[in-house]
């Protein structure tokens, strides 16, 4: 499974970012959202940007300790916190700017498809992000 953006439907409301960060961090925290709305101007056009869960993931290839592996049940590439050494190679490698680094914990983080039921897909009022099986 992976997520796809239907940019024309995005109103820039950021509900996806908010629910994503609440799910993963227990707080409303755009800097920790795994999905980010790219805005050309304050009034759009908007594009929801999220990990494509690439077949040949550049992030996983760049990781020197093999801390990024594919969850077979969801198809999501997942960062193993215990293995991650905080080198940020994956952040640099991702061509979609969908890998992020938490400077406080020293670990990389990314979209994990919420274990199979992505919050953003469920909550987007206009279907601007969809899941593709």
């Amino acid at each position, binding site marked *: 499974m992976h997520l796809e953006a239907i940019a024309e439907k995005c109103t820039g*409301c950021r509900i996806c970012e908010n629910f994503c960060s609440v799910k993963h961090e227990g707080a409303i925290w755009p800097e920790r959202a795994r999905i980010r709305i790219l805005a050309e101007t304050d009034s759009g056009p908007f594009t929801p940007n999220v990990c494509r869960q690439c077949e040949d993931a550049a992030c996983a290839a760049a990781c020197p300790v093999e801390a990024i592996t594919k969850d077979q049940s969801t198809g999501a590439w997942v960062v193993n916190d215990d293995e991650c050494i905080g080198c940020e190679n994956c952040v640099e490698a991702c061509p979609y700017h969908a890998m992020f680094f938490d400077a406080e914990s020293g670990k990389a983080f990314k979209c994990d498809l919420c274990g199979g039921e992505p919050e953003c897909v469920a909550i987007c009022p206009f279907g601007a992000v969809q899941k593709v099986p």
Partner: protein
Amino acid sequence: MFPYRGYAGKCLYVDLTSGKIETREYDKALAENYLGGNGFGTRLLWENVGPEVDALAPENLLIFSTGPLCGTIVPNPGRMEVIGKSPLTGIYGDANTGGFLGPEFKFAGWDAVVITGQSPRPVYLAIADNQVELRDASHLWGLTTSQTENAIRQAWGDPRVKTATIGPAGENLVRFAGIQITPQRSAARCGLGAVMGSKRLKAIAVRGHGPIRVADPHRLHKVAIALHKRLRANPIFPAVHAHGTPGIVSLMDALGRFPTQNFRMGSFSYVDRINADTLRARAFVRDLACFGCPVACDKLYCVPDGPYAETALRSVEYETVNALGACIWNANLDALLAANRLCDELGLDTISAGRVISFAMELWDEEILNLDDTGGLALYWGDMDTVLPLLRMIAYREGFGNLLAEGVRRAAQTIGRGAERYAMHVKGMEIAAQDGRAQKSMGLAHVTSTRGADHLKAFPVIDETGYPDEGRRRYGEQYLPDIVQPLATKHKAFLVKDGEDFGAVVDSVGMCKSGGTFVLAEIYWPDIAAALEAATGMEMPVEQLQRIGERIYNLQRCYNALHGITRADDKLPRRFSEEASPSGNAKGQTIDIEPMLEEYYQLRGWDAETGWPTAKKLRELGLEGAIERLQR
């Protein structure tokens, strides 16, 4: 440490005279008794800005205040309040705004910014998380609001900085100058832009990277999901999303509630040229939303061709379509949009700006004003070639604009010659796009609003259409059918009081009335109580929340009482009682405010003679301190 989540837990206190910036922990008792938003601002004004302080003096406070639900995941969570004594009315003033600035304050770690004093030179306040400083704004002074925001973002090097800015209108102390809020939304009413200008504060710029932590994320998630679902299933959700507030233009026109020619009429013969369908067909570009809102009622518009081609703007609201449309007898939609954009850039409240012009136009029509008075401007109804330059003249206080910049009440006093008859205001605030003859509850709402004529304090909307569903959803069967009938007066005192108390809470927690709380009539006391408990960790039984709403509203009334407001001021212009409406559903109607007002005072527990809260009511609300102060 501040014990509640949802809040950032800290406020900024800025003294522009000395340049001193102080951090203070959010007051726990204040949070428990007033929540935040306008509740916080009301309490601070009550304690610090007495009747002897002129609204444009350094001693007035200008308060930017968010609430505990602002920036969270309940629907419509993007709102914040600006509070200060109003230079337009001389009494309690506040302006509410959506957009993205409120949440940004909280991401930066601040619940509110309290500004006092006056800077010797133009400055702007730069807040980068917890790094706060005043920066020179002499190069920004004189710029329009969007020029200011762009310049600040460029210098900062971050396009995601959010701002509150004033334009030339605020700099020139126009009494109804507003404050523009990212993204091109407005904290418009009451002239708080002039207060900001009097302090030589050109802008506040904020960038925040931190979290808004909540007490029980799991519970809040449940509450929020349920509210989101209910909103989207609401029968009028599709219409509100499709058109935004202009969606009610045609309906209001049919009701006779669409002020035309300075409230002479309640319907506009050319309403089709400026209604929602026309607006959408002519200029719609895309749907937009405020922070966290699923309704997405905002739109980006762009005029495609003609003399106003390329005019691009957002936040084109029902009020502006009326103020710069029907009320000045303008049917040119392109020119209306250009005028709206111009008000945004100059930093003018579109409602009051439109109303001073419709006032002047009626005076012109009645031959109370002539070319000598206007400095050569002919103020024919609907002449947009005059209106656009006149808006500039108002913002720059040039010529005749200088008189209009004072607001209709003062302008009428200066002009004399019976001009007061045509000044459509309550307590100095220009009346918005409602007509008490067409919707009785709104007449009462205008009169009892604590910031002067205002529809949003009580915001009675369930009696616009006459359909029972919304009334039923909010109140059950008990007040039907009268409570949803626009021309009925029964139960309207209750409707207005309940709206004011609930609205006070909505404005204190940071939610939007155009969403679930009022327009969609889907979110009510128990929902906000549950959301507050989950977000903050505060215990919030519904009765306690209702008490908070009542307390805030009563304290605003007390504040106005200190400034000499009594029952005598709770009245509509004589037009509404003496001239029967000729329009639509309101044809033949006048409005007699007194019976509803009597009932209202009774429900409120206020003294029928003075219109002030009684000592008993004040004690009930824990406002004993006000008793003594009012007696003096």
